[in-house]
């Protein structure tokens, strides 16, 4: 029999996880599917579970001059509706799942789940999100791209819990999120693309791309992006073939039930090309 705990506060959680291994269930939109079993409704967990949905310490969206901090248990819908949330995140959430799932699914859950097709990860990678982890030993902050190590694998110790997600406040001149799915709503991505760019006096001062569902985790290559800083818009447009060539190496999708690798790769690069050509 597994333990199922509904803790009152974060310190109770930290206490529990310091002694024994637990998994966390936030909105449950993936956990419940992964453990669903019709004979023992509602759910048949294989591990000890801590439900985190009522922990006030994991809630809240706040900002200071440079950063926006989002509590790990904030639902996608509440992030979408919050005035502080940058448009780039809202654009992504709007295309995710169904309204019902958006009301349950959380940002912390989307990160902890570490699915290659996790849509929210795409803007979070682009925004250099930092994941804040807490244990009895203290607080640890990790760059999201380091935190997710592989398909469904994260750098979370057994005594730690994700508490906050911190993103820098950046406004881009232009950004574009495109989700390609088997239908328009309520579907897992075949792939997704996010491009963002800012200019100063016609020169690129910030350029970022991230791609979802085309590799083991989100593809973001800051070293490629850096090569185009201070180019003019025209120069950037003229080097689109070269840019595609560089990304091509990292776009390594798989064949699966939703799509195939040739389609995913072609479309990912098409979307990148389109973003540049339409600047």
């Amino acid at each position: 029999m597994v333990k199922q705990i509904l803790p009152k506060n974060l310190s109770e959680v930290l206490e529990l996880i310091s002694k024994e291994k637990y998994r966390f269930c936030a909105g449950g939109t993936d956990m419940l599917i992964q453990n669903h079993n019709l004979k023992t409704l509602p759910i048949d967990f294989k591990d000890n579970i801590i439900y985190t949905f009522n922990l006030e310490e994991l809630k809240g969206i706040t900002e200071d001059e440079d950063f926006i901090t989002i509590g790990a248990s904030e639902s996608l819908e509440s992030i979408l509706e919050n005035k502080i949330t940058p448009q780039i995140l809202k654009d992504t959430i709007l295309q995710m799942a169904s309204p019902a799932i958006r009301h349950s699914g959380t940002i912390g859950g989307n990160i902890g789940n570490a699915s290659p097709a996790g849509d929210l990860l795409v803007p979070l990678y682009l925004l250099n999100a930092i994941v804040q982890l807490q244990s009895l030993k203290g607080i640890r902050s990790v760059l999201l791209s380091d935190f997710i190590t592989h398909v469904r694998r994260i750098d979370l110790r057994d005594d730690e819990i994700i508490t906050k997600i911190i993103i820098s406040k950046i406004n881009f001149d232009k950004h574009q999120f495109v989700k390609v799915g088997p239908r328009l709503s309520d579907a897992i991505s075949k792939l997704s693309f996010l491009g963002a760019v800012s200019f100063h006096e016609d020169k690129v001062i910030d350029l970022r791309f991230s791609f979802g569902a085309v590799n083991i985790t989100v593809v973001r290559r800051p070293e490629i992006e850096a090569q185009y800083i201070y180019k003019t818009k025209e120069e950037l447009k003229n080097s689109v073939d070269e840019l595609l060539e560089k990304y091509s190496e990292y776009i390594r999708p798989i064949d699966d039930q939703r799509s195939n690798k040739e389609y995913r790769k072609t479309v990912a690069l098409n979307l990148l090309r389109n973003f540049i050509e339409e600047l």
Partner: protein
Amino acid sequence: MKVVNNLTHSVDGLGILKGRAAYTDDLADKNSLIVKVLRSPHAYAKIVKIDSEEALKLPGIEMVLTHKDFSRVPFTRAGQGYPEPSPHDKFVLDEYVRYVGDEVLAVVGSDLAVCEEALALIKVEYELLEPVLDFEKAIDHKSIIHPEPEAHEMFPIGFEPLRNIAASYHMHVGDVEKTLSECDVVIEETFFTQAQAHVMLEPHTVNARMDYQERLVIYNSTQTPYHMRRIISQGLNIPLSKIRVIKPRVGGGFGGKQGIHGEMLVAYVTYKTGKAAKMVYTRKEVFESSYTRHPMKMKVTLGADKSGVLKAIDFHCLSDTGAYGEHALTVFMVVGSKVLPLYNKVDSVRFYGDVVYTNHTPAGAYRGYGAIQGNFALESAVDMLCVKLGMNPIEFRQLNMMKETETSPIFEIMGEGTAGTAMIMETCKLEECVEKGMKLIDWNDKYPSKDMGNKIKSVGMAIAMQGSGIPYIDMGSATIKLNDDGFYNLLVGATDIGQGSDTVLAQIAAEVLMTTMDKIVIYSSDTDLTPFDCGAYASSTTYVSGNAVFKAANDMLEAILVEARRILKSKEVEFDGVLFTNELGETISLIDLSNEITYSEDQKQLSVTSSYVGHKSPPPFMAGFIEIDIDKETGEVDIVNYVSVVDCGTTINPKLAEGQVDGGIVQGLGMAMFENVQYSKKGALISNSLMTYKIPTRVDINNLTTVFVDSYEESGPFGAKSVGEIGIDTPPAALANAVYNALGIRIKTLPITAEKILLAIKAKERN
């Protein structure tokens, strides 16, 4: 008309919204034993040994049923006419399992948890056999799927089980090869369609109990309650008189419930133990272990002269019926019989081919029933011929298609499983449908396509026909009873499966009896209480059962007039639905009349029963037009608008008729571009959940424009033909034609996914 063709609320909508117990499982005995099936993990295997000793020790486990518990009586699960045109190739349980998901055995226990526990304790040894997974290689494959000697056909259907052929068929008019050789322009193309799933909301559900007269009472989510009763009686050797089948409200069927699923096992358990029992399919079972649409390969050869007159159609079809042959021949024949007459002016036409067994989930009835497959192939091919002719595809259709007062020799040659019935098209408004549809989609402005930068807009179209029941086979009947206080009971065998037939049939009765809907209490589909009806399939209910209600209501009208004449002592009595008046101006109300004959004088129960069997099957027709935007970067298709212009005769209930067409269009678009059926290499269905099998949602369907043309079919009730299936037929071809009009790319395998479009664009660029 006051009720028919007027806005009338459905008789059950409010009660269902209020959550009244309505569906099969709502009505299950609370103490029902649970019947749970162990399903085959192998595509083809022989069961060598079953060890259920440990499972039987579990408290709460009542029994474990294996093939040894059943006598070897082969039957077909298809609920169609009798004798059935489907081979008798299924046993309740067999020592062979023929697809992943097939029934190995069943456990019966007090609750689902103990049944699941028992299933995990049962050890089954299999001898694995080589499965047949490619239907193009099924004929004369070294693996024979039905080697058992008991399997048989009820009458000649081309059944050759030792060659893996469930049925075969051949027909021709004229000499196709000779005509083709004389044509100026000939095309030959091959098309493929997939094993679409029905995805009805309510899964297959059945429960049973013994009543105090020791009779077996089965509540069943079915489209064909009378056929169920007969098949269960035959399969389990229980006298027909001992069985009562009740069909409660059904949450969708689309053909998927035109067959037996858990009924045999549940009926057996209750009959054997005397205890109530039930089964509700999981969604995975609905996908893997019920029915699919028959996947098909269709080779179409068309020949025309230079002026664009179609001279010959040669149509070869290979159909995959999966592990069992339900509806094998009849679906196959509809590919021809409800598609080829669209082009009735050809000199010669041939339609032939085979239906083969494979080790996949069995195929069965599904809305469209072959016509959607045939329509995709023929209507795509017609557009391809037009390209070669250099002719506008609409002008080609206007020149060659069926018109009012015309006929086709195919009607007489091809029925469903047997010969057909000759008929003249007394209503066929196809020309008007095409013309109106062109205007509504703004064809002349949008055809063939418009480049809009990243996207390209285009239009495509197709025409279609269906039938209205099966002549000389489908029978419906109705009983009408007058009650005190002047209201009527309408008892029909017809089966409301969510399409609204209870409402439509009550409207027909109300109109004839000049009364209002609240005075007609309809009760349908209870084999003890309602008269026979073949069930809800083949677009038959409004036309066939509706005609029976029409007759019964007229008979009732005559019967109450007899009473009124007697009471008012007059030969001339007029009735307006409320009041009877004789020539002297003396009156009696229907309420008083009914009270008098019930309670006070010359008492009697007025009750009439009438039946109707069609002597023809007037086809509804439609023209479907799609407008799409294709994203050049992703190959994704946005459906901008779908225009349906339909000739279904009078719409008895315009809202329900529109709902039938809209639902058909969406389901057809699902098959055309969303519903990707995928199997593993070992033959297991991968797309076996709503996570992996995507049907379109509301946001995928931008706009549906559905209109009906004026049409009055003399032989139908108040001029009605059918409308249940016609909507599903055009989307695949219309979409394929629109994709071609946009990109010059012809996709001949369904579904038309973004992957196929994009890779075709790439291939085209490379060349």
